[in-house]
């Protein structure tokens, strides 16, 4: 019986020996470069950042003094206010997008692209075996279907991890070259237990990356499921991509009218709503979202496994 490691090794070979994969990596590198150049070209340096922060503070104070501010939003405003005051006090400039760290934080947006790529890879790793007819020779070895499926899932997640690392490396290099590293010692200001604290910027970037990966993992799992159920690559990629881009909007619209929208997957994928924003539906909390994500995750995977294990292979 083969070890799961050699099965993963096989899946990796099938991912990285394909030209399409290298095309994706090239596209990723290109996006980081384009992102940096566009930022550099369009960024307008504020004349006096202190004046801007001060006016922001005034605005927040005005909002806070109003009567019916939702409680969650009020907390958020208060935190921002404290952080801004701290900036003026300690002379710490806000992180501009045309600095090394600012660019690195915004590079997390490119994770959407990685999500798309991972969806393509994950959906392909199951559906392509069917359309190529190779599934037959794959499943007549002494490896259970469960093990084969698991190796494919792990290989897809490893691919995502690899792309994330590449994104981080690419953007660090591009950021350093395009924006320089003079401000590399800049701290990240966070609000903890009633006080403002200075934290490592690197940790902050990693946190932003991690939060952006929720979509990545959930949509990859979703695409994996669709491709195991329908054995069709385009369908799986199409559905997952559509869900990825249209899902949040539709959910937001629904959330305005219906409370039950909070049980939808996309109401819970954006965990930043609890860190520097307001929850989509009043009463939602971080543990609630974590729980919902876990439930969806388990359902997707269980369905994939159940169907793949039982299916007659007639390809």
């Amino acid at each position, binding site marked *: *019986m*083969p070890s799961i490691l*050699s*099965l993963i*090794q*096989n899946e990796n*070979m*099938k991912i990285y*020996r*394909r*030209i399409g994969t290298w095309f994706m990596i090239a596209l990723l590198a290109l996006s980081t470069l384009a992102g940096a150049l566009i930022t550099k070209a369009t960024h307008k340096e504020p004349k006096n950042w202190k004046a801007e922060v001060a006016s922001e503070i005034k605005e927040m104070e005005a909002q806070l003094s109003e009567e019916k501010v939702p409680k969650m939003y009020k907390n958020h405003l208060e935190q921002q206010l404290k952080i801004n005051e701290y900036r003026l006090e300690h002379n710490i400039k806000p992180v501009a997008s045309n600095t090394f760290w600012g660019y690195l934080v915004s590079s997390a947006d490119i994770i959407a692209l990685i999500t798309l790529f991972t969806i393509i890879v994950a959906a392909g790793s199951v559906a392509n075996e069917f359309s*190529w*007819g*190779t599934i*037959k*020779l*794959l*499943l*007549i*070895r*002494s*490896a*259970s279907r469960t093990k084969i499926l698991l190796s494919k899932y792990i290989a897809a997640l490893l691919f995502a991890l690899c792309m994330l690392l590449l994104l981080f490396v690419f953007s660090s290099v591009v950021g350093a070259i395009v924006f320089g590293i003079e401000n590399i010692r800049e701290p990240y200001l966070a609000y903890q237990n009633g006080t403002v604290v200075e934290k490592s910027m690197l940790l902050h970037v990693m946190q932003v990356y991690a939060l952006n990966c929720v979509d990545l993992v959930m949509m990859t799992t979703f695409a994996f499921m669709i491709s195991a159920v329908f054995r069709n690559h385009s369908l799986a990629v199409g559905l997952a991509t559509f869900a990825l881009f249209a899902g949040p909007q539709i959910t937001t619209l629904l959330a305005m009218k219906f409370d039950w929208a909070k049980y939808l997957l996309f109401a819970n994928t954006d965990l930043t709503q609890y860190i520097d924003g307001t929850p989509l539906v009043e009463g939602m909390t971080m543990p609630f979202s974590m729980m919902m994500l876990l439930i969806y995750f388990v359902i997707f995977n269980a369905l994939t496994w159940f169907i793949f294990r*039982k299916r*007659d*292979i*007639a390809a």
Partner: protein
Amino acid sequence: MNPLLQLKNVRKDIGKKTIIHDLSLEVFPGEVFGFLGPNGAGKTTTIRMIVGLMGITSGDVLINGISIQKDFEKAIQHVGAIVENPEMYKFLTGYQNLLHYARMTKGVTKERIDEVVKLVGLEKRIHDKVKTYSLGMRQRLGLAQALLHRPSLLILDEPTNGLDPAGIREIRDYLRKLAKEEGLGIIVSSHLLSEMEMMCDRFAIIQHGRLVGIESVQELSKQAQKVLLTVKPVEQALTVIKNIYPHMNITSAKQGIEVSIDYEEIPSLNAALVSENIKVYGIQVLTKSLEERFLEMTGGNEIA
């Protein structure tokens, strides 16, 4: 001898249709077993069930006595197979394809891969991408992946499809050698009946998902048959034969007289002719070809 493969009342329903009806057969070590049947008879479906690609509606398949349904991983360990066309990863080289399958079984070394490559005669092209292969080359690569882990049961669905005459001959000789020398049990399905006749020890003929008959090659040559007699003078011989076998179907052809007669009765017919001073130059047994037998059993060219 214990059978390598046992099918016990295997049945397959897809939807409301029964595709395989309670099929039972056994394959022993050291034999090449032909699996024949017209298009749509259920050969591929049966093979898919044997290797666990399809579920079995009722009945069981035992490989080395182990049920494929209850302990798939253990039962499939000693099976090598090609199911329909040998589809490979086209963007990988032949060698990478073999490496892929080698990793899926413990104990397949690099040397073994080289050995198998040589055996199927792909040394020159093994490091080329499979998308540049011809059908016959892919068929050879398919055979290579099936042999990689030294299986004791080899299941080949139309392995000679796409091979050139020399290739067919090579594969045939090789399969016979594997069976005789290494005691493998080999199941081969094919449409090429003359091919099968040369390759196999026994046949199962199936039609509409039912077993029509199992026969061995020896039996085939002993069945009721025609005998061609080269005699002189012909007229006198005809009278003699008509006297002994009044109801026999006799045709006199250019080469001689053709009679339908049991194998066991040939000597006595000969004796009768000789005692009447007829010169017997030759007695040729016209064995029924597998093709004739096949058409007889399946009732011609009928597709399920």
